[in-house]
């Protein structure tokens, strides 16, 4: 009875991905090293989760546990209610581009790679050729369809790897450092594609060390350090939480000495000759009254970015 209630609850799980309390320890030279501990993640349709953390934090290990490539010591993974470690059919719901790997065959063309991997994921030859042609179009690789992968640029290879992972239209796409080693243009390209893919309803889990990319793309952020998740929140909340309530005011010309004195009486000191920091909205208007009618260049609220948040959290954990 209890069991059926639980399975009912699991069956109505709206998430594409649920990873529960994953733990993995590696044994090397007789010593045990815990790479991932109690990592839980969830991801809904059309959502991008940026999975961030310093080198060796356990991101790749977690991603491979989700993809069924590494068996967790504890915890479980469900992809649309299926267990990739027990039900091979669950793999039809996942596509992955793994870090530092080739992911595709270099001695074959993009079209051949797409067709072959489509069939390996359970598609018919005909369906695979059709879908392959569509993806080549969407990924702007059609003109290179007959070029060997080994002579494509790094960016094109990476785009192809993503296309291959999407052949069987998976519900979940895992991208481990998809923009590693790409130039500016290729990075923009990959970012555009990621947005398109998510728009089509795929859920994406991505890791990256380029925090600006994570900030731009992600709906939510999970930060992992030493194998443990230290924060998980929506990207906007996280940035708001770490942003101060201070304002920066900048004038066009340097502020005359007499006004500087008045500002000083308010407890506000200049940062440069033309700019000052105000920590409080109340004071902001008094400051503006003093400055009136000097031309103002900008008033800006202090905005943290993901890099500030990341560094604070990761350094905080080390202290």
């Amino acid at each position, binding site marked *: 009875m209890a069991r059926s209630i639980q399975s009912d609850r699991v069956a109505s799980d709206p998430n594409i991905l649920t990873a529960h309390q994953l733990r993995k320890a590696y044994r090397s030279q007789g010593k045990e090293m815990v790479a991932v501990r109690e990592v839980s993640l969830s991801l809904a349709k059309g959502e991008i989760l940026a999975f961030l953390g310093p080198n060796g934090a356990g991101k790749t*290990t977690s991603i491979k546990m989700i993809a069924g*490539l590494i*068996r967790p010591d504890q915890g479980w993974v469900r992809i649309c209610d299926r267990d990739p470690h027990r039900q091979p059919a669950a793999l039809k719901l996942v596509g992955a581009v*793994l870090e530092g*790997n080739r*992911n595709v065959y270099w001695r074959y063309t993009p079209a051949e790679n797409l067709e072959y991997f489509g069939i*390996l994921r359970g598609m018919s*030859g005909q369906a695979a050729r059709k879908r392959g042609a569509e993806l080549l179009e969407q990924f702007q690789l059609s003109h290179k369809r007959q070029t060997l992968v080994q002579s494509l640029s790094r960016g094109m290879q990476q785009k192809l790897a993503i296309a291959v992972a999407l052949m069987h239209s998976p519900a979940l796409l895992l991208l481990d450092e998809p923009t590693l080693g790409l130039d500016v243009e290729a990075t923009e390209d990959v970012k555009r594609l990621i947005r398109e893919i998510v728009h089509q309803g795929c859920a994406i889990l991505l890791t990256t060390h380029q925090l600006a990319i994570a900030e731009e793309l992600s709906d939510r952020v999970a930060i992992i350090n030493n194998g443990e998740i230290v924060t998980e929140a929506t990207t906007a909340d996280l940035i708001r939480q770490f942003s101060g309530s201070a304002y920066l005011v900048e004038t066009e010309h340097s502020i005359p000495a007499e006004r500087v004195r008045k500002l000083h009486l308010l407890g506000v000191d200049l940062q440069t000759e033309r700019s000052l920091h105000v920590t409080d909205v109340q004071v902001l208007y008094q400051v503006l009254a003093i400055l009136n009618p000097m031309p103002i260049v900008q008033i800006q609220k202090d905005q943290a970015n993901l890099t500030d948040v990341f560094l604070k959290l990761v350094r905080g954990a080390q202290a």
Partner: protein
Amino acid sequence: MIEIFWAELKRQWIQQRRFAIDSIAGIVGLAIIFYGLFLTTQYLAGPTTQFGTRLDSIVVGYVLWTMVSFIIGDIAGGLQQEASTGTLEQIFLSPFPVAQIFLLRELARLTVTLTQMVAILVLLMVLTGRMLTFSPALILPLISVIIGAFGLALTIGSLSLLIKEVRQILSLLPFVLFVTILVPVETWGMPARLVGWLLPMTPGAGILRDLMARNQGLDWGLLAIAFLNGGLYFAIGWLLFQQAERVAKHRGRLGGY
């Protein structure tokens, strides 16, 4: 499953065409070897004479030997190479068993190689006027040997998932094959002969010798033993591979780590 086999066959065909110079070199090499066999059968004293000294027998012995070494070397070598380039993990993301994919890949490769061999032999027969005759009965023991070879290939393949250096093991292979395929176990006395039946691929190879070198008819009882033997080694290989897969996933070592 048939879709995967066709896909693998297509990939073989693409490779043959794309790397045409390598393919042609391979075919020419094969043709030279066969031509040599055609010319020198009378004086031949190599290991393959175990299958009889008639030209047909020598050719069958050679084909069997090369196929078995290909099967066993290719699967372990392929696994190792794909682990180091990084495509192996993509194969493991397939909902099909990885062992099945590699077996179908090897079957496609064998199909191509066998087609080439047959084409060369037909050409040589036309050119030299010497005719080869093969009894269709040869097919059955041959299949039993190939099934056993697939089993051994999976066994060594499972080692290659766990140990990153299987080259040493592979270098022992010709010796092992020599014992299992070329030693005439069927001529041994009774208790030793039982042991011979348990060796991989040995009963099937023995039947081939009976058929070709000794001109005996097909012994169905022995054939049943040969298929049991092949099936047993295949099952062992398959199970070991599943086990190795599990251990590699536990250690996190599927990729090139």
